[in-house]
């Protein structure tokens, strides 16, 4: 049986979405800037998609700027606001729950002379609005908090934090890449200034993302050039991908309640079974405030990549935040920042569900996954416990 349980990594294109894209991959290949009908139709298709995406998050179409990915949207938000507001102050607040595409631009801004405060989550991955408030200084121009974590599923108190930012005149950005299309997101209700999203997270195409920019928010482009996207993002528009993102947004809006219900049912079943059948296992992240299709664990005494490989040999595709699955060979900074010791973080495994998953797949997984754990523990020198492990041990660089 094949079970794709890695919907936080990426999603298949919905057939309806591909169908909407096809004309733009064939005869409707015009450049939206061209004045003849072929170009005009491309422009209209892009503007229709903008309306569809805006509608999904309750924004105005003019507040949506298309990008090539969630990562680009995050870079655009952080660097663009930092550049626009640098003369008002040079302090930025982010959290240790952030994706690399927020953390690494923040580090780059540090090199440019900005001060960055990294706020820690609690053991369940929650950021406390109070901790954000305490981190604010008179110099703070930007706060960026992830909406929902792809690693542990926790949903952050965005509305409360946006409120704090607004009261202090600080621009607020949320990386909602793992959230939009999977749970309801409403920029007006949240009161955020900027919000990142990516189409491939909700059955849209790769190569299309968007940044919501609240009307009146001054931002410096990341990609300068022509007048595309109202001068805020240059480059010939990826029309097929943008059209696909629009259609995917439309479908997401229609189907959101069913989607949530479907994946939550699968997730709850898996979590219950796994926690019953496997010993020395931790359910990571927040038990309730979490993405409905997201189950993340740390399995003690064994390593995540080995679990992934052995599960893959059974047709079960999942993800891990273990060091060995990262090219940097470091355990997930998110898990560590939550206070999970490194040797336990290496046993990270994440199952994330989508519309293509079924209860049979869950049942199959509940047969196979405990066996995988058992087999790997048979190989593990720690199967009887972490004897001799100093939690604070440091890794020497491995060459």
């Amino acid at each position: 049986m094949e079970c794709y349980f890695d919907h936080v990594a990426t999603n298949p294109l919905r057939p309806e979405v591909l169908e909407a894209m096809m004309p733009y991959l064939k005869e409707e290949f015009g450049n939206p800037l061209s004045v003849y009908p072929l170009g005009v139709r491309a422009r209209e298709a892009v503007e229709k998609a903008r309306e569809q995406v805006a509608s999904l998050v309750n924004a105005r179409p003019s507040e949506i700027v298309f990008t090539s990915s969630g990562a680009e949207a995050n870079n655009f938000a952080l660097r663009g606001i930092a550049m626009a507001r640098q003369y008002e102050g040079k302090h930025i607040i982010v959290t240790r729950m952030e994706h690399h595409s927020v953390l690494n631009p923040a580090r780059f801004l540090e090199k440019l002379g900005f001060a960055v405060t990294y706020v820690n989550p609690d053991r369940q991955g929650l950021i406390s609005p109070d901790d954000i408030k305490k981190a604010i200084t008179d110099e703070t121009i930007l706060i960026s908090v992830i909406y929902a974590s792809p690693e542990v599923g926790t949903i952050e108190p965005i509305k409360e934090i946006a409120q704090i930012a607004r009261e202090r005149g600080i621009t607020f950005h949320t990386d909602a890449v793992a959230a939009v299309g999977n749970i309801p997101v409403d920029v007006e209700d949240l009161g955020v200034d900027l919000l990142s999203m990516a189409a491939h997270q909700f059955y849209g195409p790769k190569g299309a993302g968007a940044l919501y920019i609240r009307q009146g928010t001054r931002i410096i482009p990341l990609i300068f050039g022509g007048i595309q996207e109202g001068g805020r993002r240059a480059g010939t528009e990826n029309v097929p991908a943008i059209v696909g993102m629009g259609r995917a947004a439309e479908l997401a809006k229609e189907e959101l309640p069913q989607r949530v219900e479907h994946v939550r049912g699968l997730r709850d079943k898996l979590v219950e079974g796994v926690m019953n059948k496997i010993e020395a296992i931790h359910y990571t992240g927040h038990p309730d405030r979490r993405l409905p299709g997201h189950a993340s664990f740390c399995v003690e005494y064994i390593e995540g990549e080995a679990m992934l490989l052995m599960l893959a040999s059974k047709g079960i595709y999942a993800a891990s935040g273990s060091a060995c699955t990262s090219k940097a060979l470091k355990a997930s900074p998110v898990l560590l920042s939550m206070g999970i010791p490194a040797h336990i973080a290496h046993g990270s495994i994440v199952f994330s569900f989508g519309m293509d998953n079924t209860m049979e797949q869950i049942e199959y997984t509940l047969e196979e996954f405990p066996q995988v754990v058992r087999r790997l523990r048979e190989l593990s020198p720690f199967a009887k416990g972490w004897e001799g492990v100093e939690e604070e041990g440091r890794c020497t660089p491995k060459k």
Partner: protein
Amino acid sequence: MYSKEVMDHFMNPRNVGEMPDADGVGVEGNPVCGDVMKLFIKVKDDRIVDAKFMTFGCGAAIAVSSMITEMVKGKTLDEALQISKEKVAEALGGLPPQKMHCSNLGADALRKAIEDYKNRQKKN
């Protein structure tokens, strides 16, 4: 990503287990870093006659452990000391660059096991 040989040794690891009567034991790695290899050898007339392992680590680490236990069997201690990380990787049909350290871990655990054996010999 992984070669057929790696996947074979990972899915069907050879020589798994503790060896209570080992003549030498080598442990390399650190669970904080994500890999620990424990290598046991049995030695007769300066020749490794049996080897076993227990490993906490990724697919490559497990495959390397399995392969190195196969490679050492029947080798003299001096021959075994010639086994480099490159030779382990080669025997596995290659490893992705970021996984080369795993085969180093294997070679180092082996060296430590031989050292342990030699130290024990000295004591007797």
